[in-house]
C-alpha cells in the first residue's frame, strides 16, 4: 500500500469546524507523489485552505490518517518533525513575514532548524539571490509592496529547503509582472508542489494536472480539467466574473 514515491497521503480524512453543521472535509483522499505538480481549483469555502492546514497539522482531522514521507502523523510531535520538510506558502504574506527585516525573516526558518548564524545568513542570501530579490534584504517587511512581500514569503519558505511546496493562492492580489515571475520560479523548481488558485491561466502554466473539490472531497476526474479549460477559453477575450 505504501508506495515509495508517496510524499503525502491523506486517507479518509473528515473534518468539521466546531459549531458547523456540514463537514468541510468529508472522507477525503489525496496523494501527492514525488515529482507531482498539481493544481487545485475550487470555489471559495470548499475547504482548500483547511486541506493544506490539515497536512501541516495546524488543524487536526476528526478521522482518517495522514501519512507524510511514509510516517503516519498523529501527535503534535510527529508534525513538528515534518513541518520543515513541507513548505506552506500562506494566502496572506503579512501572516508569514513577522520579523523586522527581510533577511531576518528568511533566516528565521534555518535558525530554528539549528543552523549557525553564519550558515543561516548564507542560506538566506543564497535564497534571495535565487529569486533575484537580494536587493530587498535590509528592507523592513511591512513597508514593502504586496508583490515584493509574496516573493519574500516564498523565499522564507524555500530557505527551509522543503521537499514539497504547498501554495495557497500564491497569485491573489498580484499584478501580471509578479505572476509571471512566480510562474518562472515555480517552473524552475525541482521539487513537487501543490497549488491552490482561482486563476486558470496561472494553474495551467505551472502544473500538469488540475484537481477540484466538492462536498469535502477531491475530484481528480479528467473531465473537470477539460471543463475548466473550455470555460476559460470561451470567455477568454471578454472581461467577466468567475463564480
Amino acid at each position, binding site marked *: 500500500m505504501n508506495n515509495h514515491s508517496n510524499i503525502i497521503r491523506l486517507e479518509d480524512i473528515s473534518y468539521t469546524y466546531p459549531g458547523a453543521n456540514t463537514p468541510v472535509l468529508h472522507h477525503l483522499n489525496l496523494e501527492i507523489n514525488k515529482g507531482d505538480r498539481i493544481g487545485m481549483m475550487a470555489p471559495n469555502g470548499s475547504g482548500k485552505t483547511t486541506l493544506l*492546514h490539515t497536512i*501541516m497539522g*495546524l488543524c487536526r482531522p476528526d478521522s482518517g490518517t495522514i501519512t507524510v514521507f511514509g510516517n503516519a502523523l498523529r501527535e503534535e510531535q510527529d508534525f*513538528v518533525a515534518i*513541518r*520543515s520538510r*513541507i*513548505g*506552506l506558502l*500562506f494566502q*496572506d504574506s*503579512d*501572516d*508569514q*513575514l*513577522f*520579523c*523586522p*527585516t527581510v*533577511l*531576518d525573516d528568511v*533566516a*528565521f*526558518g534555518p*535558525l*530554528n*532548524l539549528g543552523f549557525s*548564524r553564519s550558515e*543561516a*545568513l548564507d542560506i*538566506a542570501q543564497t535564497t534571495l539571490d535565487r529569486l533575484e530579490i537580494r536587493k530587498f534584504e535590509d528592507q523592513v*517587511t*511591512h*513597508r514593502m509592496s504586496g508583490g515584493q512581500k509574496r516573493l519574500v514569503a516564498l523565499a*522564507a*519558505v524555500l530557505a*527551509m529547503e522543503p521537499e514539497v511546496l504547498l501554495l495557497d493562492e500564491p497569485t491573489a492580489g498580484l499584478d501580471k509582472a509578479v505572476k509571471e515571475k512566480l510562474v518562472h520560479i515555480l517552473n524552475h523548481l525541482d521539487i513537487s508542489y501543490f497549488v491552490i488558485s482561482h486563476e486558470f491561466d496561472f494553474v495551467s502554466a505551472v502544473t500538469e494536472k488540475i484537481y477540484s473539490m466538492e462536498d469535502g472531497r477531491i475530484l481528480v476526474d479528467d473531465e473537470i480539467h477539460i471543463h475548466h479549460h473550455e470555460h476559460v477559453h470561451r470567455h477568454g477575450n471578454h472581461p467577466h466574473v468567475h463564480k
Partner: protein
Amino acid sequence: MIEEKFAFGHSMIHRLDPSVRILCAIILSVITALCDHVSLVLLHLLVSIMLVAIARLDIKDVLNRLKPLLGFLLMIWIILPLTFDGEVIFRFGILEISRPGVVLCAKITLKSICILLLFTALIATMSIASLGNGLHRIHVPDKLVFLLLMSYRYIAVIQKEYQRLLRAAKFRGFKPGTNLHSYKTYAYLAGMLFVRASLRGQRVHQAMLCRGFDKKFHTLDLYHPTILNSVFFFGVLVAAAALVLFEIFWI
C-alpha cells in the same frame, strides 16, 4: 506608525552594542529619577545633552520629540504651584503661588526632559530589531522580546485594517458625530478590529510553527565586544557613581 528617525546614523553611539546602550539608559535614568536636588538634576541634564550631542542628532527633530512632553509639563505648571502648600512667593488676589510647588515643578520638568533626552540619545538611535536583540542579550524573557517585535511588526497592519473598516463605513454614508449611532459604529469597528487581530495572531502563530518555531529567540545580528563598548560603559558607570556620591556626601 513608528518612524525610526534617529535609528540610522553614524555617530559613536550608533556604533555601540544595543545591550550596552540599554543598560546605560536604565542606569542613568534611574539615578536621575531618584535625584533630589534641583541643582544636581541640572548636572544630569548636562550629561543627557552631551549624549544627544555625541549621537549627532538633528536638534529640530529632538525638540519635536519633546513637544508632547512639554504639553504635559505645562499642565503641571498650571496646577501644582497653585495647589501645593507651603511658603507663598507670589500672590494675585486669591491665587497663591507656593515655593515648594514651583521647586517640585522645576524638578519634574528637568527630570522628565533629561530622561527623554537620555532615551532619545541611547535607545531611539537603534532600530526596533536591534532593541529586541539588545533586550534578549540582557536576559529579558523571550516572550517579552517577541511581544515588542510583534507589536512593532503588526501595528501598521492593524492600523491599515482599521482604516479599511473606517473607509468602508464612510463609503456607506457614515458621518462621525456625537450621537449613539456613531458610538455604536466605533464600538463595532473596535470589536471587529479585535476579532481580526486575534485571527491574524492565530495565523501568524501557525506560520511560525510551519517554519520550526521553538519558542526561542534566534537572531542574525552578531556583536563582538569592542573597546568602544567597554570604555563607554565604564564612562557611564563612573559618571553615574560620581553623581550619586556627590549627592550623598556633599549636598
